[in-house]
């Protein structure tokens, strides 16, 4: 592991770059998918269209999306913006369905009670619907975060500096520890994002800690 001992600074810098590139798709993706998903479950007519649309987007392999976005948006193929937009598209594709299902899973009686108590539409959304959907939203967001971190590495094929650099450079120079470090660090960064989200979830939704996972019907 001499290589690693000599290259800590590089690995650290790349990890930070990697994290930085990952944050925007996760945050923006979440913000875009909230209204879209909510719409899909609130107005069932739109559901098929919205979910079908994001389903198609999710199916597109990342390399293909990196090629198709630039001509559509007039940006350069080999730019960070290309990768960030593509990853945001994936984040939305994953998250919209979760959002729709999260809101759909709320007991109608809870919503009716809220209205009975006096909440207006928006107030009810923020005070009742969103908190109730919270745990499922968080679970979906964790999936998005981890997938995004992992997919940033494919950006190496379009020249984007991230931990993916360790893959291509290590491959070129046949330095196994370098590639290995890249894989492990990407994995770790993903875990960190996941842990941060879990902690955030506990802070924002302290009630979700009480009695969560139902016992399965097995054994």
């Amino acid at each position, binding site marked *: 592991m001499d290589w690693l001992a000599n290259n800590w600074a590089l690995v650290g810098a790349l990890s930070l770059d990697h994290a930085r590139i990952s944050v925007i798709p996760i945050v923006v993706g979440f913000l875009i998918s909230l209204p879209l998903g909510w719409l899909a479950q609130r107005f069932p007519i739109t559901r098929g269209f919205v979910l079908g649309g*994001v389903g198609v987007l999710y199916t597109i392999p990342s390399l293909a999306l990196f090629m198709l976005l630039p001509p559509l948006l007039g940006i350069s193929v080999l730019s960070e913006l290309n990768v960030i937009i593509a990853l945001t598209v994936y984040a939305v594709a994953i998250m919209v369905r979760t959002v729709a299902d999260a809101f759909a899973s709320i007991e109608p009686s809870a919503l009716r009670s809220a209205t009975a108590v006096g909440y207006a539409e928006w107030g009810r959304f923020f005070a009742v619907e969103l908190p109730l959907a919270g745990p499922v939203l968080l679970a979906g967001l964790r*999936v998005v975060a981890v997938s995004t971190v992992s997919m940033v590495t494919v950006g190496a094929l379009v020249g984007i500096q991230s931990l993916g650099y360790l893959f291509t450079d290590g*491959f070129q120079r046949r330095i196994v520890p370098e590639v290995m470090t890249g894989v492990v660090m990407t994995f770790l960064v993903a875990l960190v994002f996941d842990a941060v989200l879990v902690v955030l979830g506990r802070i924002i939704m302290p009630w979700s800690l009480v009695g969560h996972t139902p016992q399965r019907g097995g054994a």
Partner: protein
Amino acid sequence: MDLFLDALVWLLSPEQYTGEGSLPQRTLEHLSYTASATVLAALFALPIGYFIGHTGKGGTWIVAMTGAARALPSFGLILLLVLLLGVSQRVTASLIALVLLGIPPLMAGAYSGMQQIPRSTIDAARAQGMTEWQIVWRVEVPVSLPLVLGGLRGAVLQIVATATLVAYVGLGGLGYDIIQGIPLRRFDQTIGTALVIVVVALALDAMLALATRVATPRGVRQGRLDDVRARESGSRSAPVATVASSPEKEITQQRKNT
């Protein structure tokens, strides 16, 4: 939009369909990598997933593994394996990486497929006098089929997408023309190939969606199972997204048929 027109012209020109490296050839290569990896992954993952689902032990392990697999960068894995196994083994190395990608969704599909069968159904079968094996083959497997197929769909999706990257280590597949086209600045080639990849991926996904619908036993399709599940579980705020295969399927697997 010019670029898309160029790409269409490139797609329609007869050169792409003849000789070495033609689009049909690349597509076939791509599909064969996908098929082999999926089959191998299924051979490994389905029995284990069924077993864990049937006995009910080890569920949390599957959840953790699925999450962990999603965090592994597949591109790095391919390069690492080729470095370790040597270039003459690049096909094996790439296949291993693809198989590793496909295992979690398949295993999770089999597991959750088994899990969501209500105890009462199993008890009824047992009451009728079926043996353990009969229960597995005549009740559990068919009823779990939709979720297993959902897992298959997720696995194929991942594998098809990642198979575009194996061109980097000198294999074929549809990714080849993109990886070649970037340094050559042939955007008609990169965009045209990207379009083909999208069509192939969508076609596979649609076929599997159809298969899932077709394979769902009529009774299950009517959503009875869904109601039973909701009654049994009680709490609605289960972190369902952590279990099972492709993210979009994760929720639907626990709720309704697609």
